[in-house]
């Protein structure tokens, strides 16, 4: 139990956080806050997983141990790189005379109460995730696929419904999220189904709210009180968002552990956050570093298929439509061109998807 918790903390918090320091080193110093660093690192991590896993799935049917070893190694490499680059940048800033410590923020009583509400609402959803079982037929595919990889070392070579052997189905294999669940199960020693149904949501639910928090920071700036109010409303919209089986809120609540839910709530929202971070401010007036956001957007393109094969064209549509409309409205073709470059991995995935 203790070993499992330590392993979970390392692979789902410490390593992604350290990796996040890498793109975060290339954004404004005042924006290098834990929620931004962690979201960036998590996106980076799933992109690395997708890059490693898909080729192994294709060439080595029993390659799960290889995925585990390779991914752990590459993750550790990038985590170390993140620490080194970030510290290098921080030292350089210090040498340039930038203030080392940020001012301590004072909270009013009202703000404190609002933040306690936010924390309580998020905690409520985490508790419900663990205590309430949600039946979803797709688990017979995705959760079993994760269990199969962990128990048999195979990658998409056994029919999850019956157990008979089968050929690789690349349309499903492009979405490596079930194998990621298996990876967590293997490293922590927890049963894959328990990871999906009782563990992973404890990380994914707060992560979704971190993305909204990051958006809120950009939307409200110095209006201290507005940010927790905004997050309370976001929480209420999720807790009461099960208006049909199709909404993103329903997916987060009823299938937290599935790639489709991660697509609807984490990946799409991260794209919108990054677009806000890049284009939501006066770019002409500020000479600010934004490479970290671009790197993260590019990593989303690489990792998009991790969640679901349909995320390939959904994310391409999202970035494409934003790029095109912003280019037309702002009469700046460079916006569309820059965003199109981030879509190159999506185009490659799309070609694979259509050719299969």
């Amino acid at each position: 139990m203790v070993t499992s918790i330590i392993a979970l903390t390392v692979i789902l918090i410490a390593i992604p956080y350290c990796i996040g320091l890498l793109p975060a080193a290339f954004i404004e110093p005042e924006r290098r806050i834990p929620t931004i660093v962690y979201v960036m690192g998590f996106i980076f991590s799933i992109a690395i997983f997708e890059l490693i896993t898909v080729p192994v799935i294709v060439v080595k049917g029993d390659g799960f141990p290889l995925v585990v070893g390779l991914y752990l190694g590459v993750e550790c490499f990038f985590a170390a790189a993140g620490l080194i680059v970030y510290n290098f940048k921080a030292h350089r800033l210090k040498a340039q005379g930038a203030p080392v410590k940020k001012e301590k923020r004072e909270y009013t009583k009202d703000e404190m109460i609002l933040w306690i509400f936010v924390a309580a609402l998020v905690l409520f959803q985490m508790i419900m995730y663990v205590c309430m079982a949600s039946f979803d037929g797709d688990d017979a595919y995705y959760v079993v696929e994760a269990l199969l990889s962990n128990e048999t070392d195979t990658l998409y070579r056994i029919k999850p419904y019956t157990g008979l052997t089968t050929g690789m189905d690349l349309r499903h294999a492009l979405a490596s999220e079930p194998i990621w669940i298996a990876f967590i199960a293997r490293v922590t020693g927890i049963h894959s189904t328990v990871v999906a149904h009782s563990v992973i949501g404890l990380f994914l639910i707060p992560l979704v709210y971190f993305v909204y928090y990051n958006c809120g920071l950009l939307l409200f700036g110095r209006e201290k009180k507005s940010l927790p109010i905004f997050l309370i409303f976001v929480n209420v919209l999720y807790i009461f968002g099960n208006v049909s089986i199709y909404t993103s809120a329903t997916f987060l609540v009823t299938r937290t552990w599935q790639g489709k839910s991660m697509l609807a709530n984490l990946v799409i929202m991260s794209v919108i956050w990054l677009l806000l971070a890049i284009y939501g401010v006066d770019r002409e007036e500020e000479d600010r570093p934004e490479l970290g956001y671009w790197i993260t957007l590019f990593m989303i393109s690489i990792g998009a298929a991790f969640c679901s094969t349909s995320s390939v064209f959904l994310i391409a549509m999202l970035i494409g439509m934003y790029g095109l409309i912003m280019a037309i409205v702002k009469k700046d073709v460079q916006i569309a061109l820059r965003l199109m470059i981030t879509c190159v991995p999506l185009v490659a995935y799309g070609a694979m998807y259509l050719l299969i």
Partner: protein
Amino acid sequence: MTEIVEIYKAYNGTGYYCLMFIAALLYLWFTEEDKHLRLLLVIVPTVIQALFFIPYFYMAYNMLDEGTYYRILWLLPMTLVIAYSATRAIGTHTRVGVAAVAVILAISGTYSYVGATFSVAENAYHLPDELIELCDMVRPEEGKERIWAAFPPKLVHYVRQYTSEIMMPFGRDSMVDTWKRLDNPLYDEYMRPVMRADELAIQATEYNCHYCIIDKEKELEGDLSGEGFELFGETEHFLVYRNKSVPFAEDI
């Protein structure tokens, strides 16, 4: 066009969030002074929403992925825009404003943790305890070959989430009407209002099933014990029969 409207209505379901989203867009259209936020949160989502209703866009999407057109609506930052505009709208009336908006949002939606798909988790697997009891009864000992077992259709979604050591003659792929499925006489037998012991025994042996799990509530015509089966065990709602005609791999 009718199909698109139906998809939109189905997405909106029992709630009013789509209407709220439109109201939030309108509010921001008239009040948002920041030109960048106006573009990102109002203009682009409005265009995407308009595109959603264009039949050619619908046809093009269906060529990529049929049956998931509702996912275009995921691209609209509904939650973000509604929450942002509501926060702007209440202004400095924090206490009353937060309470009033939260109540309106709650009433306009549907509480997420109720409904037929939700139940209190019986264990960390989120699988029925009784299913785990059944699987533990029939699963092979460590190091031994996997076994085949036929479970009642209402349990097949769960079995292989617990262990991959139990193989099944039919699974979810036999149950979804809209999927093309191969004929499976054993599944058909399980689906009969009254199951026939003789036919069940023949089909279970045909599929090399070591075990058959029978719902106690299900009517069974004949006696499986007379068809080469023996009662192996039982739980509160199910009987477990061992098929003596199918030896374990280790015994061959």
